[in-house]
């Protein structure tokens, strides 16, 4: 969800105005994915590196996230969307926000129409390091460590591999996002800034993805569908 700051700067507004405007895009994309039959949608809301931003901006971001959770919890639940969070371990996360996050997950835990994973205070490297630590703690012998067994130690191990990553605002970096899961993902880099990203842009990205020839390192071409897409 890139481009909030630039969106605000283009309008001579403070960066926080960009974050505020981003909420509409989030809801639009969730709605579009839901309509498209996407079963797994992940949003990268806040990285472990984002804590380095100015305290006032972080504070506004945290408030916005809490407001958005409370505002949209019921709508997400009634649409059968299971909400999960990836990360959320930093003690700087205010307790009221942590409780709302826990409440949203508890409320929607049995929904299966779509799983929305919000990467918040997320870092792909940290997840891998944590998984390695867990493996060592469990005393798993080296010969038993395989890609499959390792993946079971990652957070939300039931999550399928990522099919499609959409990075807005033209930025073309991975930025520590779900490093393990994006190994074979297709990437699309629309130039539109995130606050302006709407359902039609999402559909365009899906269309690009459908036309891609996915080989997974081999030569066979599997059928690409919107299902299982992230």
């Amino acid at each position, binding site marked *: 969800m890139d481009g909030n700051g630039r969106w605000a700067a283009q309008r001579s507004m403070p960066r926080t105005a960009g974050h505020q405007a981003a909420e509409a895009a989030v809801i639009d994309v969730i709605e579009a994915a839901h309509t498209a039959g996407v079963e797994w949608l992940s949003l990268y809301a806040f990285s472990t590196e984002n804590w380095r931003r100015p305290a006032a901006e972080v504070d506004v971001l945290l408030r916005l996230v809490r407001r958005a*959770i409370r505002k949209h919890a019921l709508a997400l639940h009634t649409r059968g969307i299971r909400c999960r969070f990836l990360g959320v371990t930093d003690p700087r996360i205010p307790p*009221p926000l942590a409780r709302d996050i826990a409440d949203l997950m508890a409320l929607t835990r049995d929904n299966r129409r779509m799983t929305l994973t919000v990467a918040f205070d997320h870092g792909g490297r940290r997840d891998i390091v*944590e998984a390695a630590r867990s493996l060592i703690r469990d005393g798993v012998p080296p010969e038993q460590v395989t890609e499959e067994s390792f993946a079971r130690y990652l957070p939300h191990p039931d999550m399928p591999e990522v099919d499609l990553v959409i990075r807005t605002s033209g930025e073309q970096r991975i930025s520590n996002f779900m490093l393990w899961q994006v190994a074979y993902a297709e990437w699309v880099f629309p130039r539109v800034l995130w606050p302006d990203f709407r359902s039609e842009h999402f559909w365009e990205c899906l269309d690009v993805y459908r036309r891609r020839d996915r080989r997974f390192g081999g030569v066979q071409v599997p059928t690409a569908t919107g299902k299982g897409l992230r």
Partner: protein
Amino acid sequence: MSYAAPAGTDDGSMPADPDDPLGPGSMLHPLAHQTRWGLVASRAIVLEAAHPQIGAALMTNSTFVAHPWRRLRNTVLSAQRMFDPDERVRQREAARLNRLHARITGTDAEGRPFNAADPEARAWVVATLFESTVTMCRLSGESLDGPALDRLYSEFLAFLALMDPGGGELPPTLREFWRYYELMIEERLENTEAVHVILDRLFAQVPAPPLLRDRPALWAAGRAVAGPVATAITVASLPEPLRARLGLPELPGARMLIHTTYLSTRLATQLLPQAWTRLDTVMDMLDPTYSPRPGSDALTELRRGAAKAGALLRLLTPTPRTAATGDSTLRSASRFFSEVLDQTGNGHLDWPDLAAMAREIATRLDLATEDEDRLFTAFADWWRELQKELDTDGDGRITGHEYAAATAAMTSSALIRVADVLFDVTDADDDQVIDAREYRVLFRTAFNRDPGDGDERLTRAEFVRRFLNFMAGRRHSDAYDRLFAQS
């Protein structure tokens, strides 16, 4: 009408033994798991408080006015252990309760000694629970016939025998019991301060349960209506001679109110799905941190439903406006004094406050006798240290002002010993480091909190440092707040 005990456990997981007086086949077992048992408990506690020994113990040692929800949660968990299908669990809990009560001693305002483990007082507690159960059935329109009453009484005798293998001081037959009960009402009970604290303060000022802690206005509005109603129902259900002695008038319409309440709770218990009216479910709604042992699939399902309903309610309730207060982790010494140290809520710090903290830790961690003794000794040492350094006027208690004035300069070697004991009971493998697994066990059992799957490893020094920081009132700690501060 005769009372038919269920043929199996609530979850059908193991066959009920009809000869086990406290097991799943007993009359008491299902009753003790029903929410309407709350009517029995609130009435019984007034009758108990009128007993001079119990009244004095409640006034000087109990945290039930300051932390009623925590007290209720501990009582419910304890009751579940006392009616556990496994007799060993019951015996362990009875032994723990005996140890806990043996530590509650002192003298009342008139200089008379009291002891919470006194056999006569303990027998009276069981007597009030039995009589209140009978009263609940009668007021709910399901009077028990002779054999059912005999059976229920024998089950309460078994309950007393579990606590007091010496036999206790209740009469062996029901006929003799009623004579004993009338005699107690007429000659033993008094117009104690504890009765009026319960009726006038507990119901009227009960703080919000954890579910509504952030919604004080909503809670205050509900309590303004429910508090007087609860008082009227409790008063109207008391025996007439006692009510007269306590100077409590019966309000007009109270009879109808009491019948309606008891009848509706009975109908709710009968008509609604069993799991809905279970105490577990209601506790789950009121206190999201309440986490009893896992139950049947149906019950787990319902508990999840209750948790979801609680989550939705919290998410939909508007957030209160909070003033920007800078670093929220800092708290004033006076707030720390009233929220954490003054466990009994009487405005000053004395031994019962520290004993209540030790009890809370010992209960949550279900400590063995030896560890429990070490913990209480450490707290007693801390109390002596506090008295020596802070009790400037030598009145045996410490005011918030005395604490705030001296705490910063205080040495805390005794408090370090408290932290040491806590560290030792947590460090299960004795490797001098609380590893991630031990840390999770500590948080889940002692603090009812899931710390996540982080890789927290605490050395003794770090653990002690965090504990001292919290106890010095320097820092908020979500975990310790849950244990000591929240009601």
